[in-house]
C-alpha cells in the first residue's frame, strides 16, 4: 500500500444514501460504498444513469450528507458537520463543474466566476486578481464583461471551469462534464483537466463517456452500479 493510499485525501466508509426515506417513493441511491481518493489522482466514477455516481459525488463534495456511514476529507469527519461547517469545507476544498454548467445567464462572465468568492470576505483586489488569473488561464479575458448567457457553448464551459478553480480548490469534482459537448469541446475540457492535474489538483469525474474513461489522464476507474462499487480498474 502506498503512502497516499494509507493517508487518503478522501475516505468514504460504508456510506449509504436514501432519498425520501420511509416514503412510498423511497430511493436507495447508495447501498454501502467504501472508497478512498488519493492526493493528485484523477478518479473516474463510471456507470450508467441512475447508478449512484452523482449521489456519491455530492456526498464526497459536501453538498449532501450520507444517510449512514462516514466521510473524511483530509482529517475532517464531514459527514456529521453542521451546515455552516460543511459549507466552509465545500467552499475551501472543492471546485465543482456541473453537467448543466449552472451559470447565471444574466450575470457577466467575471461575476459568475467571482460567485464563490463573495461570501469569503476576501479583499476586492485579491478577488479581482484571482478572477483575472483564472479567466486568463481559460482564455476568457476578452469575455469578462459579456453576459454568460450570450457567449458560446465552449466559452460557457470554460467559464464554469474558471468558477470551479477560482477558490484554488484541492479537489475538482466534475459531474458528466462532457455530456452535452461535441468531440472538440470534450477534448478541450480533458486537456484542461490534464493541465490542472499536472499542477497537482485532485480530480474526481463522474461519467459514462468512453472518451473520458479511456483518457490517459485518468489514474483510476471505479465502476458504480445499483449504488455499489462493483469493479475497480486501472486504465
Amino acid at each position, binding site marked *: 500500500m502506498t503512502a497516499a493510499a494509507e493517508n487518503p485525501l478522501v475516505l468514504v466508509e460504508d456510506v449509504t444514501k436514501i432519498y425520501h426515506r420511509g416514503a412510498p417513493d423511497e430511493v436507495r441511491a447508495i447501498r454501502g460504498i467504501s472508497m478512498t481518493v488519493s492526493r493528485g489522482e484523477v478518479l473516474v466514477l463510471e456507470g450508467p444513469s441512475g447508478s449512484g455516481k452523482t*449521489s456519491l459525488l455530492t456526498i464526497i463534495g459536501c453538498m449532501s450528507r450520507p444517510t449512514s456511514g462516514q466521510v473524511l476529507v483530509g482529517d475532517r469527519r464531514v459527514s456529521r458537520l453542521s451546515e455552516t461547517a460543511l459549507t466552509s469545507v465545500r467552499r475551501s476544498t472543492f471546485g*465543482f463543474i*456541473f453537467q448543466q454548467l*449552472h451559470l447565471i445567464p444574466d450575470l457577466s462572465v467575471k461575476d459568475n466566476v467571482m460567485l464563490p468568492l*463573495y*461570501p469569503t470576505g476576501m479583499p476586492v483586489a485579491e478577488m479581482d486578481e484571482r478572477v483575472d488569473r483564472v479567466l486568463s488561464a481559460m482564455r476568457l479575458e476578452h469575455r469578462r464583461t459579456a453576459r454568460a448567457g450570450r457567449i458560446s457553448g465552449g466559452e460557457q464551459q470554460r467559464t464554469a471551469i474558471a468558477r470551479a478553480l477560482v477558490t484554488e480548490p484541492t479537489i475538482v469534482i466534475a459531474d458528466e462534464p462532457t455530456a452535452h459537448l461535441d468531440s472538440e469541446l470534450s477534448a478541450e475540457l480533458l486537456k484542461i483537466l490534464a493541465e490542472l492535474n499536472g499542477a497537482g489538483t485532485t480530480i474526481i469525474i463522474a461519467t459514462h463517456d468512453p472518451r473520458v474513461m479511456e483518457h490517459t489522464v485518468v489514474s483510476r476507474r471505479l465502476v458504480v452500479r445499483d449504488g455499489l462499487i462493483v469493479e475497480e480498474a486501472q486504465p
Partner: protein
Amino acid sequence: MRRHLKILDFALASLQRRPFKNWAIVAVYAFTVAVVASVLFLTQSIRQEAAQLFVGAPELTVQRMVGGRHVPIGIDAGDTIASFPGVIDVEPRFWGYTYDAVTESTITVMGVGPGMATIELVEGRLPTHSTECAVGAGVAAMWGSAVGGEIILVDAATTGVLYEVVGTFTSPSDILTNDLVVMTSDEAALFLGLPVGLATDLGVRVANAGEVDTIAAKIKRAFPDSRPITRAEVLRTYDAVFHWRSGMMLAVFSGGLIAFVILAWDKATGLSAEERREIGILKAVGWDISDVLELKMLEGVVISLTSLIVGLIAAMIHVFVLGAPLLTPMLRGWSVLFPKLHPTPHVDPYMLFAIGFLTVVPYVAATVAPSWKAATTDPDAVVRG
C-alpha cells in the same frame, strides 16, 4: 464587514438584472407609502396648526343655548363671570356668517377682539372705523381686492354694505383666516343684527389652566342656560375630527393597501424556478444558508427602503410643497370658501418609524421567508439539474 459589503454589492447587481420588475415594485410600493404618508402628514400637520392657532384663544368660551340652539348671550353676564376668582377678564365676541351671492361663498364676519393678536396681518392694519375691514387671503382673492380696495357684504337686514379693505391676514395657515372679514366690534354687532347688549359668545381668560374646569362649572351653575366650552375641548374635537377623517381615508385606501400586500406576498412567496435554481447554484459554489438569506434580506431592504424614501419624499412634496391637492377635498371642512392649505412641515418621528416599520418589515419578511426553504435545501438538487 467586507463580506457583508460584497454580499450587498451582489444584491445590488442582482436587482439590476431585473430592472423592469424591480422598478415596477418600487413604483407601486412608493405610491402606497406616499398615499398613507400624505394622509398622516396632512392630518398631523392640521392638528398641529390648530393647536398653535388656539394658543392665543381664551381658555373658555361661553355660549348661551336655548332649545338646543346657540343664541346671543348678554354682555352683562360677563361682568358676573369676571367677578369669579381666577378669571382675568371676559371679552364679548361678535361673529357670524354671511352668504355672498356674487362669489357664492360663505364668509365669516368677526369683530376685532383679543383673539386677533395671534393672527398676523400681511399688509395694512386692523379696522378702527365702521367702514373699514380686514380680510383673509381667500376673501381678498375672491374679490380681487387688496389693501385700499373695497368689498360689499350683505348684512342681517339684507342690505349691501360697502367696506374699505385696510388689512389682509396671514397666519401659520389659512385655516382660520381664509374666509374671514374682520370689522370693529360695534360694526360687526350691527352687521350681524345682534341687539344692543348681546354678543355671539364670551371669551373668558383664566389665570390658572388647572382651574378652567372649576370655573366652567361655576359659570354653568350661575347661568344654567350657558354652555362653557374649554379650549381643550375645542382642540380635542378638532383632533377627533381629523383623526376620524384620516381614519376614513385610510379605510378608503385600505383596498389599495391590501392589493399591495397581496402583490408583495405573491411576489415573495412565489419563488420562481429561476430564483430557486440561483439559490441552489449559490449554495453549491459555497454560499452558506446565512449568506443566501442575507442576500435576500438585503434585496428586500434595498427595495423597501428605496420605496419608503421615495414615497415619503413624494408625500412631503405633495403635502408641504403643493398643499396636498389630492387630499384636501376629502379632509377640509364644510366651508364654501375653502381655505388654501399650506400645511406647516411637521413630521412626527414616531409616525415615520410606524410607516417604516409597517412597510419595510413585512416586505423584507415576505422576501426572506420563502427563500428559507430554498436556502436550506441541499444543493445536490441543483447538481442533478
